[in-house]
């Protein structure tokens, strides 16, 4: 995941749609399952920082990864049109 730009939380919080189509790297802890997405896609909230910034991430079914709550991951994400972050790749940190 080198070469990836870390996601700026300020920008994301300011306007997530403006970042749509971009690919970023985020590192955070799986906070909670938000809802089951379409098909077997899963939506989680990931805490980015201790200050309480959270981002919604969508784990597609194709990744076939076990997502554990409280586990810290490094994620390669792409910003969807809706502003939700789609996980392209993840590594346990």
């Amino acid at each position: 995941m080198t070469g990836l730009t870390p996601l700026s939380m300020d920008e994301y919080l300011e306007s997530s749609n403006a970042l749509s189509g971009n690919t970023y790297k985020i590192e955070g802890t799986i906070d909670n399952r938000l809802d089951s997405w379409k098909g077997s896609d899963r939506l989680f909230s990931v805490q980015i920082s201790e200050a309480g910034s959270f981002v919604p991430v969508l784990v597609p079914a194709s990744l076939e990864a076990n997502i554990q709550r409280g586990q810290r991951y490094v994620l390669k994400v792409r910003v969807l049109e809706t502003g939700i972050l789609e996980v392209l790749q993840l590594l346990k940190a």
Partner: protein
Amino acid sequence: MKKLFFLMSCGLLPAQLSAQVLPSPSAAPAQSSPPPQNASGGGTSSSGGGQSSSQGSMFGGVLPHMDPGSETATWDGKIWSMNNNRLVRSKFEIYLATPEANGPEDQAYRDIMAQIVLLLAPTRKGGPDVSSAFALLPEAGAAKIDAGICNTIANGVYDVWLAQRKVTSLRSANDAMSKRRKQLEWNNEVAMSNAELAPAPANGGKGGAAAGNAQKQGTAASIGRVSGYVKEMAEIEARKKLNETAIGLSEVSGKIQFQALILQMFMQRRFEHALIACRLYPHMFKDGDSVLQLEDSSDLKKAFSAGMGVPPTVSMVDSLSSEAIRSVDEAVVAFDQLVMRQDYQSASNRLMEAFAVGEYLPRVRRLPMIQKVKVLDYVRDGNQLINALEMKDFGLAEELVTRMRKTSKDFDFSKPQAAIETARTVTDMHLINANVAMQKGDQVGYASSMKSATEIWPSNPKLRSLSEKMGQKSDVQSQALMELDRLLSQRAFRQIFDQQGQFFAAAFDDPARQKQIEKVVADVTEVTMVVKVAEEQSRSGNSFGAWEAVEKVYTRFPEDPEVTKIRSDLSVKASEYVSAIEKAKQHEQRKQSGSALAWYLKARHMYPPSSFASTGIERVITAVKAESAAPSSAP
């Protein structure tokens, strides 16, 4: 007693032509206002009704009959109240307020009238002096009080004298005609006897025939003269008959006219003039016949015949006139005594009776003003009391009754007092009902009770005060309802809540408004509880939760000042959380789903029980799902 009844009935008839007619002869003599009221008349007896019917029948009902017991007069099937009569009351009041007639002109008149009566008195030394009395009549007739009646008497006397002169002339003519008739009879007899004494004609020869012819001619001439005499005698007889008839008619008509004058003056209560005329009568009609020439079919003749059993005479009128004068004198004496005792009720009654009969008599006209004014105020109060009771002004009636009780010792206040108390009691009952209806809001019942109370006593002061109270109440009520409507339109529910008692009272008869007030009270109560809980939460450190609770209430009642105030305070205390929620909402509205979710998640992290954050997250996810499902379902 019978004479007195007749006197007063006849005397009062002319004055009562426009009298107040009472309902029914068969009923008790009722006044114009219930119960029977006659303050100045002092009606203390109701037993006169029975007596009036029996005594009225004594005269056959053809003459007005007065019943002292009930103080009514019955005539021609109708009953008049003698005292409760506007015309009588007003005339009597005028009399009381008029100074006594004792001026020089009046004194001169009285002197002349007294002199005339003395000149005509049968006991006068040397006998009555008719000429001197007649000579004084024009002088008396010039006085105002006399109204020219003495002149009328003088004219009546003169007419009789003229008629008598005519009669004398007619008698003289008849005497002359009688003499002439006798002469004609003699002539007739002579003519007849000459015809018998003519010599008989000789038998045969020329001389006998000529003599026969001459005899025949002489007889024819005698027969012609006789027939002329007979014809003239017949004419004389016819003329004498005519003259005798004229004499008879003249005598009778003169007598009737003068008798009519006497009766007229008597009926007009001019008793002094009636006396003078009665005493002139025998000097004008010296045949000694003083029976009043009334038609056999006349009611007056029947009345006298039925009531007294004798035909009416001039002497009877003379004595009735004297009796009237005497009774008036006695009544005035009684009046003076009663005034001294302060029995003004009885005094006014006696004086009214004296006035009714002897209005023109000197004893009445010369009664000192100082005596009359003592009863004037009392009589006026009595008249006013009658009017007040007629008009149902019982307040005024009560004042008058109190005053009259203080003024007169013998004022019978029982009847008016009973009427007043009855009216007061019944009216109070209706007013109580009206008050109760007003309290209950029963408009129909209130109006009905007030109407009943007004019909009984229109000027009752309690009526006015209750009406004003109702008006004020209505005014207050209408103002309160207007205020309620205004506050509802402005959604000033807190103010409605604070004045709920007043508004509930005003809307007691308006179920719709009552429901509105109840809802407002329930909502404000709920809001107040939420505010209290939020304040408690805030004090205990849970500003986020307090803010959430207040925020939910604020969406429903943004105008509530309490809510606005605490929301403002909590927005400061929970500013970070509030900011996160607000930003999340803003991003949600702009379809910045990622940002919105991020903020909601942040808010939930600050306050995990946050319902705003939870519901926000769900809404955003649902929206995103729907958006992503739409393209996939498109063909």
